[in-house]
């Protein structure tokens, strides 16, 4: 499967996605936020530096909001990564969240993790699991990540092979289980080691996710009894109506129903806790965004310099966060963030 970009799909152009999201819709997200007393939306404090180190990935998942895949060549340079480290060394930003693509495919990944660990930051690697088996050079990643106390957050859309493979590709479930075994053997997910392996569930279709606690119990029971693997927490997230998932919604005739479902489920409490309030998203070329979704829609931050080279924490802390119609995805029901449900 090719990325939308490589196949010349209209939704590889962010403005066309936004046009689609704006069409035929009177329920403006900004109005709902204003009703909830949350417009303009302001940051609480920048606690998480979420760095997208590149769009290259060994998988091409059907729902991917990044439109990542083997044919994507955008990769963060060592200079930009160094710039991030310089800022992190001089600012009280406790968490570094490394995402992609498959972040481990960035040739500077290990160097960056070593340097970040030296700063004493909490490091998160958003690992797709199968990368651990993609090439012998990745086989020792579990030990490397464990050595640097990196939290591993991995997508596993379901505890059944059929659902996972439908979204992430044939054979992905079996490889993901093997990768979980490798991580478990390195101490991940085991009580007392402090090495966190957290999974991410997102629905395999045009539905909202159920309650995190129940799904976590299901995942733990099935993965342990059927495959002998374990993990710490399940982060439940909602599929955003952008990129490949937007294409799926349109092609399958679910777009209107799904958007209406998100709008009807708007929850002011979830809106209070959206991740863009404590997270700054950095693109592969050093551009700054309010979140990884805005990044993929090329909606840059406002009220502050838009590039890491001109980082200004005061201006960023006082900026207004840019919101649009896709933000209904983070505020529906129990809410959605990179750390799971927020309510």
């Amino acid at each position, binding site marked *: 499967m090719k990325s939308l970009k490589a196949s010349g799909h209209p939704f590889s152009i962010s403005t066309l996605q936004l046009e689609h999201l704006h069409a035929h819709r009177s329920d403006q997200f900004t109005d709902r936020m204003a009703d909830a007393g949350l417009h303009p939306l302001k940051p609480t404090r920048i606690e998480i530096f979420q760095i997208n180190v590149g769009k290259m990935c060994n998988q091409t998942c059907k729902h991917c909001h990044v439109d990542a895949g083997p044919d994507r060549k955008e990769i963060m340079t060592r200079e930009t990564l160094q710039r991030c480290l310089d800022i992190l060394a001089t600012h009280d930003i406790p968490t570094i969240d490394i995402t992609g693509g498959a972040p481990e495919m960035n040739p500077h990944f290990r160097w960056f993790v070593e340097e970040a660990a030296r700063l004493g930051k909490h490091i998160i690697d958003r690992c797709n699991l199968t990368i651990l088996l993609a090439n012998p050079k990745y086989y020792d990643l579990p030990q490397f990540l464990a050595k640097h106390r990196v939290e591993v957050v991995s997508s596993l859309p379901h505890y*059944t092979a059929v*659902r996972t493979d439908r979204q992430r590709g044939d054979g992905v479930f079996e490889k993901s289980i093997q990768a979980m075994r490798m991580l478990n053997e390195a101490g991940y997910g085991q009580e007392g080691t402090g090495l966190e392996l957290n999974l991410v569930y997102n*629905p395999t279709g045009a*539905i909202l*996710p*159920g*309650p995190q606690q*129940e*799904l976590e119990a*299901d995942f733990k029971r099935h993965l342990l009894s059927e495959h002998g693997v374990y993990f710490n927490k399940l982060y439940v997230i909602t599929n955003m109506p952008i990129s490949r998932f937007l294409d799926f919604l349109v092609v399958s005739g679910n777009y209107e129903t799904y958007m209406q479902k998100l709008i009807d489920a708007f929850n002011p409490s979830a809106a209070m806790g959206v991740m863009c309030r404590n997270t700054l998203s950095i693109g592969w070329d050093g551009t700054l965004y309010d979140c990884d979704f805005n990044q993929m829609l090329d909606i840059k931050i406002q009220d502050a310099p838009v590039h890491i080279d001109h980082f200004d924490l005061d201006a960023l802390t006082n900026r207004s966060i840019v919101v649009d119609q896709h933000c209904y995805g983070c505020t529906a029901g129990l809410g959605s963030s990179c750390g799971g449900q927020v309510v």
Partner: protein
Amino acid sequence: METYYNPADLAKFGKIGDFDKALADKFFSYYNEVFKEGALTAREKSLIALAVSHTVQCPYCIDAYTTDTLEKGCTEEQLMEAVHVAAAIRGGASLVHGVQMMNHTKKVMM
């Protein structure tokens, strides 16, 4: 094409209150209370609703509770098992009357 059932009508269910608000309010209040977590979990209630939807053959209910059970974390296998429960009871309800047929046959025949 005009049909008796329109999927878009499901979203208009609440509008039955336009003609009689008091009864609609009572119905929806009761309905919402029924589906809350109780002695049965919300997921179990949703699976029962899916099975009953097939028994009463309500297309709106089937759409609604297919989505609802999936959203509550049920698998396709669980959904189909619920439908089989409905089918078994429906089939069984016909078949058990076979006893009545047999009783009557024995009564009227030599």
